[in-house]
């Protein structure tokens, strides 16, 4: 199966639409005709597109759960060890290991770890990091264009084939792009 990484190595057809409806119809047509749509670059999250591209549901909640668990267990362990083992102090006659009183910190650290952990996982999975340049700038994709990317070589289709296939969806532009990148390092 083609992955996101093939974006860098193959000649591509970039098909731009100017409305969400046209994009969804176009992606449906392309996939229906057997052309793999590798990715779509959009100014906002288009609902229904994940289904149209058959993307599996994200497994990120697993990472969130594990990070949250790590935060909760760590601060519980620290509180237990500090208050009941390392230096027990009698505070108002409460037991050394006062679990109910430890819950606020357990909850807060769970949220803190789960939140930062999820975002860190997102950054790593999606290749986002401070100072990075976008691999390629798709004209208007961060403002008002929806750009579907189809590998030209894999299916041996050209601009004219696509234009006739997508006649009803009125793409605003169909361009061929080689693997040359506009952005720099990655």
């Amino acid at each position: 199966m083609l992955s996101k990484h093939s974006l860098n190595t193959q000649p591509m057809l970039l098909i731009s639409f100017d409305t969400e409806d046209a994009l969804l119809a176009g992606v449906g047509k392309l996939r229906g005709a057997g052309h793999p749509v590798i990715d779509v670059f959009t100014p906002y999250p288009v609902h229904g597109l994940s289904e149209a591209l058959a993307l599996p549901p994200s497994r990120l909640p697993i990472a969130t759960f594990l990070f949250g668990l790590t935060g909760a267990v760590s601060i519980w362990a620290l509180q237990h060890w500090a208050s009941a083992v390392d230096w027990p102090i009698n505070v108002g006659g409460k037991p050394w290991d006062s679990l109910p009183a430890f819950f606020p910190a357990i909850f807060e650290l769970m949220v803190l770890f789960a939140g930062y952990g999820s975002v860190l996982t997102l950054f790593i999975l999606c290749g986002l990091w401070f100072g990075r340049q976008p691999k390629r700038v798709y004209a208007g994709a961060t403002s008002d264009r929806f750009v579907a990317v189809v590998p030209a070589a894999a299916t041996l289709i050209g601009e004219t084939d696509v234009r006739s296939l997508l006649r009803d969806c009125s793409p605003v532009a169909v361009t061929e792009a080689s693997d040359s990148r506009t952005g720099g390092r990655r």
Partner: protein
Amino acid sequence: MANTESVLRLSLLGQPKSPTQVTEDIAGLLEKPIGIGWWVAFIPAVALLILGITTVSYQISTGIGTWGLNKTIGWAFDITNFVFWVGIGHAGTLISAILFLFRQRWRTSVARAAEAMTIFAVMCAGIFPIIHMGRPWRFFWMIPYPNERGSLWVNFRSPLMWDFFAISTYFLISLLFWYVGLIPDLATLRDRAKPGLRKKVLTFFSLGWDGSHRTWHRYEMVYMLLAGLATPLVLSVHTIVSLDFAAGIVPGWHTTLFPPYFVAGAILSGMAMVLCLMLVLRKVLHLEDYLTLRHFDPMTKVIIAVSCMVGLAYGTEFFTALYSSSQYEQFIFMDRATGTLAWGYWIMVACNVVIPQLFWFPQVRSNLGAIFAICVLINVGMWFERFIIIVSSLQHDFLPSSWSSYTPTSVELATFAGSFGLFFTCFLLFIRFLPVISIGELKTVLTYGRSSGQEGSTHAE
């Protein structure tokens, strides 16, 4: 292009916009020279900030004798202002997280500025407990780290310690939530920016965002997870703030009502502050098409609801005191309503419970001047609520021989004014350099280019 407007979606905006127009309008605000109005607001804000820095430096170098505290009243202005600012922060998270989970589409226009308000309000709040320590340079002693004193650990059973965890987590998670929401917009600005320093900075912070749907797919999941985490967080923060009081045995504080009472109060004050800021932004930045009555109306309705909850809490406190047959409890509530601070108590009741009832009238809800005036009064009332809770309980405690009274000194007043300086300086810098409305998120609720009548939510579906 004809037929690009959905007839089935009711527009949230003053007039229908296309994604192109949204980008032009919101990003365009940052690309033209700022008007004189911004400077008229910014210069006094910076002046207040400088006043605040000066007085804080003075009171730290001189000592906390510069405050009006005494042996009986050991907490007054600092803690009042701390609770006031934390409360204001809560509406930002309510709008960005809780209303997100409830799929309230109108939140898209207000969420960004409300989140910014949260961050700056929590910064202002954080300053007060730190200067209240008297020796703020030992702030790091709150952090449980192995130290050369034993190790002597912090007391994890103390609500003040819980506060440290709650407020710092709240600040960090709010900042993260705000930044994650900003990334797609920073990329939009980056792609429009001319080469230069601004473009370099935007490139650095936009993380190489290219609008890939594979990224959006995961991004939406993370955004929803963050909203799900922030929702119980915001409730926990003001609950823990209220436990600072409720865990003490002082009459008027020692009550299980405090957590819901404080959370409702926080949302009331925060919503009022969001409305004040939004009404000003709408006027100054000419966002009339983006902030309409369809945004203000639900917010005023939230105010009616929480105002009634706060009113119920005021009544319940009296009933509980009566029912408790504790003469100290009964005395303190009678004293609040009729004693030396009765003027403050009735300001609080009038501003928080009586005046917001005007929002039942549709004419008031659609009069922006009236909304602004009522919201300013709610902020005054909510400040008095915290002042009354703290000072009236402390000044007349169990032993009449130790009764006292409290008046803030000029140093304390200047510190409070300085916190407004910090808040408005940060907020004005925010509207100068970052998009005040989430460009990407707003596009998800446009009627443009959608034939399906499905009610869109904000991000995740």
